[in-house]
């Protein structure tokens, strides 16, 4: 099992976490939604895996490139 971090592509605030710890995701699935520039920008996972933990809470501010969750393959 290998862990990897999912990073936010944009700065903004976490609007909604739409997945749960333990949930299996496929490449292209939305992990959470960040509000940025008045838009709901999905954080999309590029490779599938299981959500191990979130590194941010809803409404937290995030920076571009910041790790927001850990997934395992």
């Amino acid at each position, binding site marked *: 099992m290998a862990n990897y971090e999912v990073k936010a*592509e*944009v700065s903004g605030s976490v609007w909604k976490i739409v997945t749960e710890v333990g949930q299996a995701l496929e490449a292209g699935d939305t992990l959470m939604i960040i509000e*940025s520039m*008045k*838009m*709901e920008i999905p954080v999309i996972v590029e490779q599938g895996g299981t959500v191990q933990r979130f590194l941010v809470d809803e409404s937290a501010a995030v920076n571009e490139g910041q790790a927001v969750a850990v997934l395992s393959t």
Partner: protein
Amino acid sequence: MSGKTTPDETAPDDWSPEVEELRLRQRDAHGLGGAEAVARHHERGRLTIRERVEHLVDKGSFREVGTLTGQGKYDGPTLKSVTPAPYVMGLASIDGRPVAVGGEDFTIRGGSSWSGDRKKGGQGGFIEDMAASYRIPLVNLIDGSGGSVTSINKRGHSIFPGVHGFERSVELLGKVPVVSAVLGTAAGGPAGRAILSHWSVMVDGTSHVFAAGPPVVERSLGQKISKEDLGGPPIAVDHAGTIDNRVDSEDTCFAQIRRFLSYMPSNVWELPPESNSSDPADRCDEELLRIVPRDRRKPYNMRKLIGHIVDRDSIFEIQPTYGKALITVLARMNGKVVGVVANNPMVYGGAMDVKAARKQIHFVEMCDCFHIPLVFLVDVPGFMVGKDAEAAATLRDGMRAVYVGLQATVPTYTVVIRKCYGMAGMGTTEKNGLELKIAWPSAEWGSLPIEGGVAAAFRREIAAAADARQRERELEEELRALASPFRTAEAFGVEEIIDPRETRPYLCRFIDAAQGKLRTTVGPKAKYGVRP
């Protein structure tokens, strides 16, 4: 004694001995830096320069120039061997069209510079002269670190910067397509030439590019850093945009070079090659009717949208991993090459940040230079805002993008998909031509988006209201009703509003019609003024 001379029985009656020497010299040239050096090079996962040329160009098309250059070793008058000059170059064909191609031979002194009577490659070398003189594309296969301080020993003096300068490299950028592939570690002059190109590419795991490598960095700044962290693709391509694209292997690199050149004319006096498209120009994809969500806060996949509009399988994306708020692709429409500039709502809602601005500047200039019509698919809320954006000089680079867009003279088609706001929106129209702006029913525009604008313009009224948030919403709704694109179309402030499904046939028709203008305006583009 008669006047007749007796033939020397041992003397040859033809030039075979010299041809034999020629073969010996050619054999040494093909041996590169020797079997051991070549094996080490292969172990590092890299091809030799001769293999690179062979993999890149049309089979059997390479005609080498300067094969015999190098350092001969003699036993008295007899040649023993030749150490070749560490640069291989010549004339070749890609897809049947001539190209000038050359690159450093890393197996000989790491591809460092060589001092003959005339330079083969590098700044001002024969290969650049050939590209300029014959007006054919230049492909630089870069695998060298340029000069070395040891040259001072050889010459007895140091060289003034620019004696072997970039003037020819700069001239080429306005005349013929120049492609640079970084296929090893490039520093100094070769790194500079990688940048002086219309399109550049590097290979994951084996290539690095920087002004100076780790030893110089450690000596200058005390920083210990690996080559990968200093100038590997994650830094040079994804983060900095120093190099345009990254690929996973040298073979993919050569395939991409061939692909890039397939969109380019051989020079600025010609138009890009037209292909026979099997994709009907009147194709109307249903998906376009629903691709933009009615909820303005929800983004959509702009890459998919582009795919519905251009010829099938014709997309080649430039800088896909840098400046992701903007998408720049070369593509074809009804067989004609176009450059598509599209805002990406998935990243900062498509706002133009400093990276997107730089990306747009280079792409628009390149398309303008090679007479490639531009299609702007606009969904831009404006320049990126915030402290980080201001600190990065988004305003300055953003205005440079606007400036370059307003100087372009190539036919340009503006298709407003959703938002077109502010100064960033101004750089998407053809001010030197027809200024044809078409819009989808989902389009909206103005000097700034209503949401932010209402809060600023009606600040006191909102603050004085019993329910400030409610009053702000009411004001937004009132203004939004007036902001319908149909009202602007009534005033001919936008030339047409179209069913999104009809975007492809509409554009194909106008791009076909612009070929006459394109044919009669070829040649170098004049540059004037001072970029802000």
